């Protein structure tokens, strides 16, 4: 069965990066340009993996994370960030609230995006560069 991936990031170039990186993988990649749009999409459909940016206007990454979890407690959510200091405390709070997520360090190359995705969706053991 085709796996569905959702990429939530306000930057078009980042959304395009994910699309081009995962082009030949056989996964279906959808994008959302804001937290709100991403939440709406999750309400309408189930996804197997969500990539989430932190630094977005409007509803930021942490808020979006909480809302997404309200809808789906199990979908793997990977936060892609450059560890902006402003979010650290709130992420710690979210983790304390037992909200599940993983952290990925920006920037990621195409190879890294592919290996991480394959690893999550198809369970391949690959060493990830850039994971904390």
């Amino acid at each position, binding site marked *: 069965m085709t796996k569905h991936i959702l990429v939530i990031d306000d*930057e078009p*170039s*980042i959304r*395009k*990066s*994910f699309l*081009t*990186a995962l*082009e030949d993988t056989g996964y279906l990649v959808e994008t959302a340009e804001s937290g709100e749009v991403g939440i709406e999409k999750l309400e309408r459909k189930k996804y197997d993996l969500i990539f989430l940016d932190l*630094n977005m206007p409007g509803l930021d990454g942490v808020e979006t994370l909480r809302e997404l979890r309200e809808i789906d407690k199990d979908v793997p959510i990977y936060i892609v960030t*450059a*560890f*902006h*200091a402003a979010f*650290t405390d709130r992420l710690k709070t979210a983790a304390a609230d037992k909200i599940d997520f993983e952290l990925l360090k*920006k*920037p*990621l*190359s*195409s*190879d890294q*995006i592919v290996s991480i995705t394959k690893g999550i969706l198809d369970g391949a053991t690959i060493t990830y560069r850039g994971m904390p």
Partner: protein
Amino acid sequence: MENEPIRIMLIEDSVFATKHVQKMLAEVKSPQFEAELYCADRISAGLEYLANNKADVILLDLTLPDSHGLDTLIKICTQVPEVPVVVLTGLGDEMLAKEAVQKGAQDYLVKGQIGSNLLRRSILYSIERKKVERELKKYRDHLEELVKERTAELTTVNKQLKQEVTERKQAEKALENSFNELKKVHQQLEQSQSQLIQAEKMSAVGTLAAGIGHELNNPLMAILNFSNYCLKHTRKEDKRYSFLQDIEHESGRCIEIVSNLLTFSRSEQDGKEEYHSESLARIINRVVKIMSYRIEKEKVSLSTHITEDTPKIWVKVGSMQQVILNLLTNALDAVEGSQKKEIRIEVHPDGDSVCLTVVNTGRGIASEIMTKIYDPFFTTKSVGKGTGLGLTISRNIIKSHGGDITCESKAGVGTVFKITLPINTNRRG
């Protein structure tokens, strides 16, 4: 005085002379000149009388049976110094008489030339003279007293003044010292002030740099991914292929620069990494293993000397690894192109610290730039080799551990970097 008779003591052994004097006195007796005469024919008798009785004047013969010459006078003057003396001398003894006057007698009379008027005059004159003498002595004594008093006063005041001067000089000296201390403190304050200003500037630059760094991450990710994609879809023979590789490579460099930058600015703010007790030796060995390929390839002779029983230190292992990696990389860059390629790493305990030195026989650091080596973005390495942040970050890490780093170098000979790190956690900055 005029009412009371003058008591005259005559000490004379010649009966004739005595009678003569009596006769003279009788001749001049008057209401203005009343005299009582007492006689003695030897000095001993005279002295005895004078011991118990008062006399207003003494007529003294110098040649007596029991005393001679000036001796006689001296005996009298010693016993009754307040009584005027008129000496009686014989003819031819005038020299002696004069001497007598010098030695205390008020006047002298030459026997055989004593007229009554002369006798009276001499008696009255002697009494007056003695009075004057007494007054003079009184004044002189008083003056001596005054002088003694005044001298004592002056001495005291002088001593006080001298003390005051000494105290004043001491106060001056103390003031000078205080002033110098103040000057020193002022200089230190000025120094602290410029350091603070510098730190503020650095902090502002750090914040700015971090902001820019974060902003760059998105575009860099895009460039990286797009060049990845293009490469995937371009044949190797295509003349654009190598350029795409370069784009990928250069964007990779940018990412590394930004990463270093963010590490640098983050090292000023949060301290996510935790402290552990670790031996420097283990960290060094890990780093050397990472760099082993390059060390061998460039034919560098690396030796490590770790003193046995060097205590473990409390350290952020990842950060310290970064520091040692930075120092070793710098050392390898320094010996590139040198005749002698030696690097020596030493660890030994040093009081309540552990000391780590990295010595290389490379090109050295010129003295003019020695003060700049820790400045961010300062590098002497060729473009692409260094970001100029390695030592800046390393120093920050060392300082946050409560340690210190120093550097000594000689151009053309080599360089020594020395790090001290406290064993005791309380010194963590």
